[in-house]
């Protein structure tokens, strides 16, 4: 009997995977469109693996097998990507994908860490407000979160850096050669702290959780739970907590990735965001294209996870 429920879930999962694939195809099309429309023919550069300033004549391009129609170019470009060839960086000449893999780990650490921190702060405030209504304490906390969320990340970073210099007498910037000091671990926590509190996500996470939880707590079935003397949280957990948390986490990933660009810049953090900034400076589009694709894939992956949780938790999702 219990196993009968497994089959539809796997079917829903297959469906979600297909949707993800379709959206990733769409993502590639958007990136392609931007490159195709951009001046300076970046697409041909990608396809040839040459810099635009190379003296190749048009005829030579054809000899090299670069297609001329847009769909031909898309197919060629997409085919190369499927083989893991995202092109070479114009600035360094290194292949893009291995570079991204190298720095991507740092960004992953930064975003996931700050996400955890955001939840750590937001969840208690949201739960308290939803459960007890507005009190002086949680109103103050909510306003604090609003203000913190409006603080410009870059300036907030400087404040933290300043505090560090004066408090610990050290410069918490990571510049590849991190000094071996006693508080070295702090180096890694500071950017997470900044991104987790001041990226504008905090107030939104609080608001979303609070709204959803309040809504669920007002549902008929929670009243039933109270009427039968059962703990309310046990009944409200799935719809009022688990689902909204995964929803908001999935929805906030792109914002955190965007915020990472700035935080990595402030702290000289060797991640994808800093790489994106450098690439935009140098108009190094193979790199920035790769970053956009990887970031979008990351977002879709987060979304996929959210759908999986939703499907696993919600008995209706597997039947609809």
């Amino acid at each position, binding site marked *: 009997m219990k196993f009968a429920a497994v089959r539809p879930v796997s079917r829903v999962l297959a469906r979600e995977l297909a949707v993800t694939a379709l959206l990733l195809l769409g993502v590639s099309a958007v990136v392609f469109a931007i*490159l195709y429309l951009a001046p300076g023919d970046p697409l041909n550069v990608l396809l040839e693996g040459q810099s635009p300033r190379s003296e190749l004549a048009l005829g030579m391009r054809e000899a090299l097998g670069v297609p001329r129609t847009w769909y031909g170019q898309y197919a060629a470009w997409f085919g190369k990507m499927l083989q893991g060839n995202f092109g070479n960086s114009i600035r360094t000449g290194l292949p893009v994908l291995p570079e991204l893999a190298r720095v991507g780990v740092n960004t992953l650490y930064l975003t996931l860490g700050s996400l955890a921190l955001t939840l750590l702060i937001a969840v208690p405030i949201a739960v308290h407000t939803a459960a007890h209504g507005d009190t002086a304490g949680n109103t103050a906390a909510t306003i604090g979160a609003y203000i913190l969320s*409006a603080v*410009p990340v870059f300036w907030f970073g400087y404040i933290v850096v300043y505090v560090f*210099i004066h408090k610990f007498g050290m410069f918490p910037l990571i510049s590849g050669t991190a000094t071996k000091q006693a508080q070295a671990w702090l180096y890694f926590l500071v950017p997470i702290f900044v991104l987790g509190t001041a990226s504008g996500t905090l107030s939104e996470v609080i608001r979303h959780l609070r709204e959803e939880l309040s809504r669920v707590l007002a549902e008929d079935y929670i009243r039933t739970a109270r009427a039968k003397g059962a703990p309310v949280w046990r009944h409200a957990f799935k719809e009022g907590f688990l689902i909204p948390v995964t929803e908001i986490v999935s929805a906030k990933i*792109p914002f955190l990735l*965007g915020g990472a*660009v700035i935080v990595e810049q402030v702290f000289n953090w060797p991640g994808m965001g800093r790489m994106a900034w450098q690439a935009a400076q140098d108009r190094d589009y193979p790199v920035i294209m790769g970053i*956009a694709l990887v970031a979008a894939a990351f977002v879709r992956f987060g979304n996929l996870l959210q759908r999986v949780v939703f499907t696993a938790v919600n008995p209706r999702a597997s039947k609809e």
Partner: protein
Amino acid sequence: MRSYVQGPASVDESSQLPLWRRAETMDLVYVGYGLLVVALVLASYLLGALGWLPHDPQAMNVGLINAAPFTPGHLLGTDFLGRDLQARLILGIQAYFLPGLLAITISVVAGSVLGILAGYRGGWSDTIITYFDNLLDSFPRLVLILLVIASFKPDIYYVMVVVGITGMPVIANLIAGKIAFLRQTNFIEAAHALGLPAHTVILKHILWFNCRAALVIQATLGMAEAILVETSLSYLGFGVQEPTPSWGNMVQAGANYFLQGNFWPSTAPALAILATILGFQLLGDGLNNLLEGKRGK
């Protein structure tokens, strides 16, 4: 202790209390602060556009660099070149004001069209628009902007087009949601049954009567987004370039002196950003609670 006091019993139900008397105090504080910020931004924008500034924003006073606020003659102090911060802050609004309006216009207009297609037409259009929204939501906004900057050119109006387009899904979802709600109460069907033409239903009943408040709220929140993007880009060096002031590049320029203990030249624009974004966000949320009913209900 909370008290609940019977007001003068109103036999005539049409004499509803005015909005501001029914509202919760916090919401009024939010909206009040938000409106103050909007008024200040608007006034400052006009001052900047007309060139009525307390000082020449480019005039350097090498003898008075990084001056603290309330220095005689410079109410908000000066920056590292001795330029008047107050004048530069006011002028800095030029950097985001019109581009922000452009972004809002794009997302509100195009988002409304998509929302109506999805909610009102339903069927195929709904499915496709949902996918389109998901697609746009896949890109971190700043990364997409950097891609556009790298491929095209670092122009704030290009950037704001991207901001506008990526802001469409929120509006589209909102309007589709409103339409779904009206459908649920058979409102739209009843309007058709009466014989009202589609354009009356869409423009008058859906957009004007039932979505205008929500659209104003979203536009307000959109402005906060636009400011965030513009200041971030200026900070990163892709936006407005020195010597033209923008709040973002002012923070960046002051940063070098920040670590030496000269907080003010960097902090003044940062506080301006903070106060303004907070103002737009609180205005949006406060209006939402006032006009669209309290959260959760």
